[in-house]
């Protein structure tokens, strides 16, 4: 039986969105199909692959495991909120330089996981980098260049902030 819609008000990449949605609408579908932010991808819808990883109030979250209504009042960041093509975020630039992507499907998730790490820990060890992105599947790269890309971005940010 249909249940009444609920109002949701969220900030995504600094923009406030207000929508009326079914309570069961997944946050991933809300972002992709209600707001048109299709940079966040969906791989398994059972919380294993990590393709749908976003930042929810600053922490990585799997948007296929949350309902949109649960994000009411939250600050969300997605890949669209990082750099633009003309002005890439250091993590995007490093992924490009190190060939940290092939099909690009897991890339937004990997980038958001890396951003969470870099913002919380400006000097992560190799092991901490591996742990930060290690919960997201990638079928193309074998992960090595993803880890190298995060390490490069970390170094670059350190050089700038020195």
């Amino acid at each position, binding site marked *: 039986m*249909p249940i009444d819609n609920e109002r949701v008000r969220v900030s995504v990449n600094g923009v406030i969105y207000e929508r009326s949605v*079914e309570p*069961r*609408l997944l946050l991933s*579908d809300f972002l*992709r*199909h209600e707001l*048109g*932010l*299709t*940079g*966040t*991808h*969906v*791989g*398994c*819808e*059972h919380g*294993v*692959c990590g*393709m749908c990883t976003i930042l929810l109030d600053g922490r990585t979250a799997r948007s296929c495991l949350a309902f949109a209504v649960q994000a009411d009042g939250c600050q969300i960041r*997605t*890949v*669209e909120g*990082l*750099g*633009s*093509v003309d002005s*890439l975020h250091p993590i*995007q630039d490093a*992924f*490009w*330089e190190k*060939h940290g*992507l*092939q*099909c*690009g*499907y*897991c*890339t*937004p998730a990997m*980038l958001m996981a890396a951003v969470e790490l870099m913002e919380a820990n400006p000097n992560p060890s190799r092991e901490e980098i*591996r742990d930060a*992105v*290690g*919960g997201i*599947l*990638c*079928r*193309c*790269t*074998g*992960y*090595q*260049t*993803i*880890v190298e890309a995060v390490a490069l971005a970390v170094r670059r940010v350190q050089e700038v902030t020195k």
Partner: protein
Amino acid sequence: MSDAPSRIPRSRQQEPPRSAYRWIGRPMKRVEDPRLLTGHGTYVDDIHLPGMAHAAVLRSPHAHARIKSIDTSRAKALSGVILVMTGAEAAEKAGPLPCFANPPVKQMCIAADRVRHVGEPVAAVVAESRYAAEDALELIEVTWEPLPVMTDPEEAARASGDGVLHPDRGDTNVAFRRSFDFGPVDEDFAQADHIIRRKLRWPRSGAQPMETVGAVAEYNPGTGKFTIHANSSMYNYVGWLVAASLGVPAHRLNIVPTLAGGSFGSKIFTHRVMVIAATLARACGRPVKYIEDRIDNITACDAHGCDRIYDVELAIKDGLMTGLKCHVIDDYGAYFQFGVGHHGNALSQITGPYRMRSVRLDLIAVLTNKCQQGAYRGFGSDVGNFVLERMVDAAVRELNEDPIQFRRRNFIQPDQFPYLIPTGNMYDSGNYSAVLEEALGLLDYAGWRKRQQEARQNGKFIGIGIATCQERSVFSATEFWMLNEDPGFALTSSPESVALKMDPTGKVFVALQAPFWGNSPETVATQILAEQLQIDPQDITVTYSDSDHGLNGTGPGGSRFTVMLAGAVVGAAQQLKQKLIRVAAHMLETDASDLELRDGKVGVRGVPGMEKTFAEVALHAHYFRLSMPDDPSLTSGLDAAHVYDHPVTTLPAADRKNLGIFYPIMGHMCHLPVVEVDIETGKVKFLAYVAVHDCGTLVNPMTLAGHVRGGVAQGIGTALYERYHYDREGQLLTANFMDYLIPTLHELPEEIVVGHIETPSPFTEYGIKGGGEGGRMGAPPAVASAVEDALKPLGVQVDALPLTPRYLRGLIRQAQQHRLAAAD
């Protein structure tokens, strides 16, 4: 072989390899990446059309059953539901799906009267949202009559009556059975001083790209034409077959490619998803999106990998391998879309890099109640590499040989190319010892052997694996039909094309006729074209033609795309170059033969400054044609198109004692993993991994290394973790990512050291060879070899994959008990 030279066609190479390039061979950053990095790539689920409705599919819970009745009335009555379609209703609108097997096995987009595997579509719902569509699926009531379930291929081969999946094809599940002899097999086995025998098992795994298959279809009743947005890889090659299923002429279907979030072979065709979406769209009068969810994809993607049981014999005389006999049972699942093409493929390199005289293949393809096989990175040659390298390791072990020396002694030597193997296929070029030496050096092989000895003294089980194997590239479609009794066909090509134009400002537009699937087609086209035109890559833009505009093309698959695309780009660029020079000759009032292309300009050779920029020439060519002399071949504008045919292929012999040249551009690799096995838990940990590949002339070492590493990761998955595990009832126990274990970063080597050796092909442009599948074709035998080597002190023998901790513990326990019993 003595008659070799007369049977090899001459090379049609136009651009021989050079000692130096400006753009080819550089690790150029990919031109595809900026949009992918910023969330602006358009994948199929990102397509949104006005008025679009959403489809979901009811999956069969039974592996084998008759559909007695379906009641869709409650589903139809649900709010938001637009259409419910059963298989019987779909059969009135759409015909059987394409099948390359002969005789074909009939498959419908939605099962009409009988299901043959768990997950097979039984009905489809179109609704205002995917959520409403899935609600409605739960209201469809199906009455089933279960039938005997066939999951064991040997049992299935003996079944009759209700245990036969496709009774219209005869009272048997054996879809194909034939024996082939190439060369003097009986003689080689009669003269052998040793015969090595093994039973080997290759498990069913699959590509499992992170993005599933999808399609967004619309039907315009005014034009009678379908448009389908899809993530199919070969839409331009087989799109007309999809039109045939839909019952419309080919020009009433346009397939528009989207980016694909990985394929690895599994999205070569995607015909079922396209036909379902299009059939629903026509029936309901609205655009329809159908995207497989993960369970749809795992249970019914039509693209599971090979699933084989082998009895193998290897003949050896005087330390040289002479003959190979393979008796294979291949569990194809419920349908047979590519026939036994996977075995045709494997015959292109079945004797590996070794000088062998003869091969016998006894092939039995069986239909069972599982998802049908499709394509997975290697397409059957992945299995061939595993089988041959397991046999080589077995020979080394039984003859107490050194694994390096034995391989070296048996290698085809550099001066023996082009080399014809017993099946008739040609290897164009190679230097196998050089690849091996490079790998041994990169690993510090001798150092690791020393560390292995020390570890053993400390009760640790370290193993060094070795695999030296082939990566055939650039298929000729012969492999799909040559094993059939009939019909035979004329010689096939499987070409690739590009269309080029330079606009009035001197920018270059490249239209590809095949899609992006995670490879680097835009970067490859850009690098080759920049080399041809001596133009800045920034001035090139690459797009993808839909099937309405696509020239004759095939698409990525069989490690062909870089070679074939390079051929197409070279052909088109040479036409464009010629036209640029002719126009510039008029402008500079000089002879065309004095002109050259340099840095985005056309200039007089040896006279700096005497030149016109491409922009100047292009503007002139576009708008001032009539200021030049009258010449019907010189039309306004600057454009060119080229269809590049297969570089070198020949017909199979009528008696199939020789299959001709069909997969000749031969890559090679050496993989050396070092593992440690924890004998208490069965866990395998990587200590090192070296992979050296020879893919001829390197176009982009960075992206090629990416392919190699990614392929190794998939190969490690195949070797250690991945399996579509069907139980006796045909239920798929690994139907989600919790149970089907794709390696995460923590299961893989921290570093895969990639090396390259270049032996350019004499047959392809610039001498490029394919390299897209190699990683996955080398890792399974290499990892099996490493694990067996680690457990050598226990006497464990590795004959089957995947080597999961549980399976390995079983082998270790067995070996330990065997030793205890022997000691008593």
